[in-house]
């Protein structure tokens, strides 16, 4: 049961944050989507031993956090919670790669290097994704997808799935609650009701789909729903996109911390 409320809470949190009005929120959704996507590609393209080169990329999520006035704690909590699962097989790297490498006087096993690299990449990618949804409402994201020529059948169906998740979650939660009140010693649902409990929910879903279809038809639906919100692209949106684009490319090409470091050690010498 906690699971259901948790998940709904997380979705609603992002939904609510996405409806704020800041400079970042007003940026065209396609621009935000492309920026996020490009950011992810750049992060992921770093080699498995790269740590330093990745660090400047932290500027992107940080600036978005600040300019979109997003609360750090709840989002950070979400990120940290998810990290161990996301890291998955990466967590085991220290186990498998024991080759010791000299790192400026400290000896680290190579497995740990890759571990930290994956750790940082996970943090950056997860944050970027969540920030996209914390600054873009679903219907505008759908508009962005339409601009990318994603067929309207898929986008409409995606919107419907998103819309009805909370309804279905509550229905399933209610059913499970009713079940567990009558079977308190059972941890999950018993084999004997696997079919009927889930099947009932499924049949009710079918009926609901029927009613929704009816409601759509009665309001003139003919399979073609063409009017997505027309958000004009502003000049500032393009500057945003190109600016980050250039920054990400620069970070990818030049290992900036290395440059800073050698410059400073050179100066000291």
């Amino acid at each position, binding site marked *: 049961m906690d699971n259901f409320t948790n998940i709904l809470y997380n979705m609603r949190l992002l939904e609510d944050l996405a409806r704020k009005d800041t400079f970042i929120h007003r940026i065209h959704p396609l621009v935000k989507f492309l920026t996020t996507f490009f950011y992810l590609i750049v992060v992921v393209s770093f080699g498995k031993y790269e740590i330093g080169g990745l660090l400047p990329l932290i500027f992107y999520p940080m600036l978005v956090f600040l300019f979109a006035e997003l609360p750090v704690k709840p989002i950070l909590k979400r990120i940290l919670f998810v990290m161990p699962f996301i890291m998955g097989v990466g967590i085991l790297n220290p186990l498998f790669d024991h080759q010791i490498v000299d790192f400026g006087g400290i000896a680290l096993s190579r497995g740990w290097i890759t571990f930290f690299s994956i750790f940082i990449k996970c943090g950056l990618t997860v944050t970027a994704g969540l920030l996209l949804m914390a600054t873009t409402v679903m*219907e505008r994201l759908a508009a962005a997808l339409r601009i990318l020529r994603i067929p309207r059948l898929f986008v409409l169906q995606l919107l*419907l799935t998103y*819309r009805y998740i909370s309804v279905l979650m509550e229905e399933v939660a209610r059913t499970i609650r009713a079940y567990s009140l009558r079977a308190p010693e059972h941890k999950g649902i018993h084999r004997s009701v696997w079919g009927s409990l889930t099947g009932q929910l499924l049949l009710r879903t079918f009926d609901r789909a029927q009613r*929704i279809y009816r*409601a759509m038809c009665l309001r*003139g639906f003919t399979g073609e729903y063409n*009017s997505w919100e027309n958000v004009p692209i502003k000049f500032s949106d393009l500057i945003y996109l190109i600016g980050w684009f250039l920054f990400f490319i620069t970070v990818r090409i030049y290992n900036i911390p290395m440059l800073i470091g050698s410059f400073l050690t050179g100066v000291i010498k």
Partner: protein
Amino acid sequence: MSHHKLEVRALNYMYPDGHEAIRNISFSIRHGESVGIIGANGAGKSTLLMLLMGVVFPSHGEVLIGDVQITKKTLPIIRQRLGMVFQDPDDQLFMTTVYDDVAFGPRNYKLSETEVESRVIHALEMVGIAHLEDRAPFKLSGGEKRAAAIASVLSMQPDVLLMDEPTSALDPKSRRRVMGLLRSFEHTKIITSHDMDMVFEICKRIIVIKDGEIAADGNTIEILANPELLEKCGLEVPLSLQNCPVCGTKKGD
């Protein structure tokens, strides 16, 4: 041009399993009337609404909306004139914001976005939730959802409003609000309900359905103050007409 907005002639409907849900129903409704359709569960109210909307077609008989018979061909025209509000607003609010739900109908008519916007604002103001236009449906209370569902139908500017249990599951305040809304609409209204008191206040005319047939059709006061008739049909006199629960005196007429 006929005075009758909606005419039902010798309507019959049979389910695939042979059960006769509607048996030889006939009535006509004039422009601007507000009619309550009441009956026990299973009497056929919802099926009747489906027939009126053209969602299902009768086995015999016909339904005419302003002289146009409902057939598969005439459905698009018919559906522009009729607006149906479902019992469960969640089935009707399927977009991600209230605005988009209310705009869905007009957009399907291929109206310009400016025209769509003015219709949406107007419909939202009519039901008093203009401030909720950007709200997601799951964040609405029961009464707000109901209002949004009504708005989503109003934006299509129908002549006739069909409503299935509009006050069910509402708290007293929301119920009052919905009733106020219904009273303010000038459309022709057809309302099915179990809420006898609401029907008593809103509707001038009542049609009682029993076992798929019309058991009574007439003036609200006459029908709803007739306890024998209502008992026979599995119903009750409205609470506001019953004996005073405290001292037992019969309510005056």
